[in-house]
């Protein structure tokens, strides 16, 4: 792997890692269920960029795009189910505070 692609990859990898840090931070410190979902979304953006960059370096753009599109569709299904759960929580307890969920020790 020549050094020019190496430096290109390093730059993109740094961007991905910083995005992932933001996403993980959001999930760990949120007190609102919906904000946790937003953090999840940010994480997904990060890894999607990683897939596209990897595909671009290796020259497999068609495969990388197919993977990215599949990922987007799966992400939609997960978010839809998560929103359904959050709405049920809200209907039951009137609030979407994560601190309420810590009641039951895991």
């Amino acid at each position, binding site marked *: 792997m020549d050094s020019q692609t190496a430096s290109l990859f390093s730059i993109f990898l740094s961007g991905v890692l910083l*995005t992932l840090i933001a996403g993980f931070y959001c999930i760990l410190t949120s007190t609102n269920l919906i904000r946790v979902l937003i953090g999840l979304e940010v994480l997904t953006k990060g890894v999607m960029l990683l897939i596209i960059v990897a595909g671009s370096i290796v020259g497999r753009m068609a495969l990388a795009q197919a993977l990215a599109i599949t990922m987007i569709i799966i992400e939609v*299904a997960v978010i*839809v189910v998560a929103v359904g759960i959050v*709405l049920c929580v809200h209907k039951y307890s009137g609030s979407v505070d994560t601190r309420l969920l810590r009641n039951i020790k895991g």
Partner: protein
Amino acid sequence: MNNLDVMLLVALVASAVITVMTARLLHSAIALALTSAVLTILMFRLNAPLAGVFELSVCAGLIPAILISTISLTRRLTPEALETRRKELLRRFWYLPVIVLLAGIALALVRVPLDFPAPPPAAVGSVREVLWNLRHLDLVGQIVILLGGAFGVAVLVKEAKDG
């Protein structure tokens, strides 16, 4: 060429940080859409137009719409406590830009070792549509998971009648 990419990456990270840090959920959802838009531009620059279009329509359109409707349905009942919330959130979240800056500096100094042999050149260098013939299983998987999402929502949201 490279400078534009670096600026786009900085914009991506910045909008991600803004998404996490804003006090109001509504602003957070809009910032998420903005992050998706920046990602779409990056995808176009990396020669992934179809994925970019998908990303824009779904992650900058559909998902923020879903999130915003959820937010409006679960509105907090204390609109006047917004100021105190903002201060509280700022106190909790101000760590993030600091962490990101430090990590960014650290990453800029580290060189990623790419000391493995490059993979063989692409046997199939053709258009996306041709590739879709090779990933039937993923297609079926997508259909099934969409069905799963549909059934899931139906089960969770529908009012139950006793039987």
